[in-house]
């Protein structure tokens, strides 16, 4: 499919050019709605994916983004929350700068400029103020997620003109200005700007363009498109009807699936797939390609369950559906017919595989390179799916007792971990983690099913909230009935949407969403309710620093890696 040239047919261009001409020499005034000096709520650094999606959406999917991004940081269980804490280091700036140069060069090359730009210069061999202003205001509006203010546009045009005049190339000038916009903080950070909430003194609410940016991140994991920015300019996003119309339009777009994938990748910790490796001597079937497919498999299942079939979120923990391709089929020991693609597979009743927890992604991600880890799997269930806080182990514990030196080889993980759970110093946390993870022990570190470990049979029984269960199917069933599972999802999605730690005011807004979601587990309904609620766009009051009990899970602390 040929990408739609997004910059050509923007109604805003003419208006922006007119504004440029009018504003020449006058004091800068904001084109954004309202006019008053905004206050910045927070600045979220674009993630790797958001950067790529934004470039693809604005300039076309064939523009290559090659470079390395600075690592994101996980806070309160989410990279999205960490995005309002990270900055740009000198190395990161160098990388952005190189990517910007490469993108600007591609966008202005002969094969792209005709499709992307709405005007052609009087002569390509020198400056053309008017055409430069048209191109730069249209690109700038999409990149900055709001119209450039007149002063900024003037500087960009002046730079383009100067370079064009000296180099004898109009497009060299455009390239220079575009590369500057691409390293501007207005592009690299989603900067939230707030205004006083009408009728509520002391409270701030996001302005229209910031609402657009927030919506686009939540629903598309990208930047607002022309229509959304136009709605912001009209003030539609401050009205329930206008907001709902845009949310519905965006959720009907194919880009919505991308947004769903982005949220679950974040919530499930899928960033850890980057650099994931297994010992190839122990797990010869595993490869980096299998790892990539494992991630894709789970995201497919989630989209199938929540978006395409609009089914209950809790069903993800018990579903017998999965998608397989020829690369991961062998690990499941299931022949796959489809060549080069994915096909639906339904597990027979009684199969050891059932739901999200028996997907390769979960099993391989939360294991050591050379062996499975009930502790890591249990910790991941607690932290990612139940929003529990698992504290770091005590520092001064003598770990020697974990191994009985007179009998150094315990054959199963259950035997090895028994001492953790019986020692009072360790038991508090290991009791939280190990019993959940031990239920998945019939899957090894590469996600393949096994009957025994070192020749000893594997016991996959467990107890959850006092009820006895067996294996992954039993665990999935137990989780699907735990209200904490739905509560956790609602909290994580909300924090993901606002991009910061939740406040007491957020909790109040979340409560009704949570009640509703507990009834039907309908993800689409939940997202829409969030995106169309006024509270979602409220900036936290400066004194609302109380953090709810969703603790950070990031950092380089203990955790048996």
């Amino acid at each position, binding site marked *: 499919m040929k990408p739609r040239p997004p910059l050509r047919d923007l109604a805003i261009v003419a208006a922006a050019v007119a504004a440029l001409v009018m504003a020449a020499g006058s004091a800068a005034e904001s084109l954004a709605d309202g006019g008053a000096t*905004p206050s910045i709520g927070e*600045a979220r650094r674009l993630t790797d994916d958001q950067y790529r999606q934004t470039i693809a959406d604005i300039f076309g999917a064939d523009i290559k983004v090659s470079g390395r991004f600075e690592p994101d940081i996980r806070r309160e269980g989410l990279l999205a929350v960490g995005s309002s804490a990270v900055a740009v280091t000198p*190395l990161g700036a160098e990388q952005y700068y190189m990517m910007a140069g490469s993108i600007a060069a591609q966008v202005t090359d002969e094969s792209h400029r005709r499709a992307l730009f709405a005007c052609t210069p009087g002569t390509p061999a020198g400056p053309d103020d008017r055409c430069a202003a048209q191109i730069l205001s249209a690109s700038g509006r999409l990149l900055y997620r709001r119209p450039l203010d007149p002063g900024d546009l003037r500087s960009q045009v002046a730079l383009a003109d100067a370079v064009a005049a*000296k180099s004898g190339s109009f497009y060299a000038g455009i390239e220079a200005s575009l590369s500057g916009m691409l390293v501007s903080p207005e592009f690299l950070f989603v900067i939230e700007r707030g205004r006083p909430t009408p009728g509520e003194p002391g409270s701030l609410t996001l302005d229209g363009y910031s609402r657009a940016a927030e919506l686009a991140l939540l629903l598309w994991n990208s930047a607002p498109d022309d229509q959304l920015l136009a709605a912001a300019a009209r003030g539609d996003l401050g009205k329930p009807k206008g907001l709902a119309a845009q949310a519905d339009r965006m959720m009907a777009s194919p880009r919505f699936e991308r947004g769903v994938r982005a949220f679950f990748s974040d919530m499930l910790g899928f960033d850890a797939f980057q650099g994931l490796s297994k010992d190839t001597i*122990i797990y010869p079937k595993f490869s980096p390609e299998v790892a990539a497919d494992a991630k894709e498999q789970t995201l497919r299942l989630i989209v199938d369950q929540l978006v395409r079939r609009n089914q209950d979120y809790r069903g993800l923990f018990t579903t017998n559906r999965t998608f397989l391709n020829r690369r991961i089929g062998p690990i499941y020991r299931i022949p796959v017919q489809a060549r080069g693609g994915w096909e639906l597979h339904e597990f027979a009743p009684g199969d050891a595989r059932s739901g999200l927890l028996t997907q390769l992604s979960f099993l391989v991600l939360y294991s050591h*390179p*050379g062996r499975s880890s009930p502790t890591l799997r249990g910790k991941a269930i607690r932290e990612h799916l139940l929003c529990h806080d698992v504290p*770091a182990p005590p*520092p001064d514990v003598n770990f020697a007792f974990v191994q009985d*030196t007179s009998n150094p080889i315990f054959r199963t993980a259950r035997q090895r971990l028994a001492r953790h759970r019986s020692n009072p110093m360790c038991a508090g946390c290991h009791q939280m983690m190990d019993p959940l993870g031990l239920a998945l022990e019939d899957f090894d570190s590469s996600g393949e099913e096994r009957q025994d470990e070192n020749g000893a049979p594997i016991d996959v029984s467990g107890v959850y909230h006092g009820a006895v269960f067996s294996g992954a199917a039993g665990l999935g069933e137990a989780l699907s009935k735990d209200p904490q599972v739905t509560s956790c999802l609602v909290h994580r999605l909300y924090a993901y949407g606002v991009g910061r730690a939740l406040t007491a005011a957020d909790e109040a807004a979340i409560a009704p969403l949570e009640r509703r979601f507990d009834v039907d587990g309908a993800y689409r309904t939940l997202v829409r309710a969030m995106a169309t609620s006024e509270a979602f766009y409220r900036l936290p009051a400066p004194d609302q620093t109380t953090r709810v009990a969703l603790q950070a899970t990031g950092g380089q602390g203990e955790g048996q890696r």
Partner: protein
Amino acid sequence: MTQTRRSVLHGVLQGAAVVLPIPLLDQFLDGNGAAMASGAPLPRRFGSWFWGLGANVDRWVPDRVGPDYDVKAELKPIEPYKKDVTILSGFNVELDGRPNTPHVAGVWTLRTGSAPIRNDEVDAPSLDVIIANAIGGGARFRSVELTAVGEPMASVSRQSASVVNPSEASPVAFYERVFGAGFQNPNTADFKPDPALMVRQSVLSGVSEQRQKLMQEAGSADRQRLDQYFTSIREIEDQLALELQKPAPADACAVVSKPTEPKIGQEIESVQATHRLMTKLLVMALACNQTRVFTMNYSDATSTVRRPGSTVTHHVLSHEEPVDPVLGYQPETTWFVQRAMEAWADFLTALASVKEGDGRLLDHMLVYAHSDTSLARLHALNNFPIMFAGGAGGRIKTGLHIKSGGAPVTRVGLTAMTAMGLSIGKWGDKSMETSEVVSEALV
């Protein structure tokens, strides 16, 4: 006449001479900005070399203090460099009630003078950043951070509480960054500034002009982060300015060829090979005056290094392996400590093999080598294994074993900063606050 960037831009594009004021470089240049001033001092350099999971201190810390210390089993690989290495033992971390977050509390106290309050929040900057801000200017890269374990977040360098300086994990990427586009061989005779650089400078100067407006609008937390961003942009501007200057000659600089990417990962052979290659590139980056400050993360704090075919990592071993009742230590865990010390010896060999001025590259720098714990099995924070290597251009006494009776470990960091010419009255927090250097180590 004051030159604006724009007038310079016009000048270059019209073929006129380029003169940019770079005060930090001036000390190495004569009045024409072309030749090395006679008798100019060699640059001051600082590095950190980090390995994870410490050592068995009773097999590592020498018994004898002073010169001619005894080299114990786990330090054996550095025997040939005994005269270049000063051992600092008996320095401790006190947490003052802050949590001993394993593998986090120790390393950040050594590097920032204060233990983190939360697992991932560190009262930074780390000392390498403080030193780089003082001596790193005038080289193309204020600092470089490297790792041999393939993980960018394996880094003991931080700009501020949430801003880690990520490590270069790929030798090829590191090569491209330093010796690829923008590199100017300091020893080539002809020099022609690239006019495209001036365009880039103008672009970045336009970006920097957005600073004031954003700073006015932003709240305090974001102001700090945005300020960090603009500082980073400023560094690229400085880098471009340097690329427009004829570089000062560097007699030790021998340009290396582009390496082949090794297999990158946590398997011990990969780690060792990546470390050797990174070291080779780093040594030339230093000798060619591309940077003056570096951090080499041989392994990560929770050392994920492992042997192929093994079900457990170094870290897991440190917790699960029984202490051998005859040997009195964990043999498999210790195997990894020995590999780390061999890598450290490789590193010293590389620095010592480059002749520079009337000595070796190693003589003109200070390398601060340390770990995140002393005995990993207990996450012990006393008696850290610490070394200084290199004479720092005559400022550090090498070849000593200096033993403290439990002084705050921050004294070591303060000593390193002092040796680098920084004047810092006090460093560290609460009981880690110190104004005393390890005077025995300073010349």
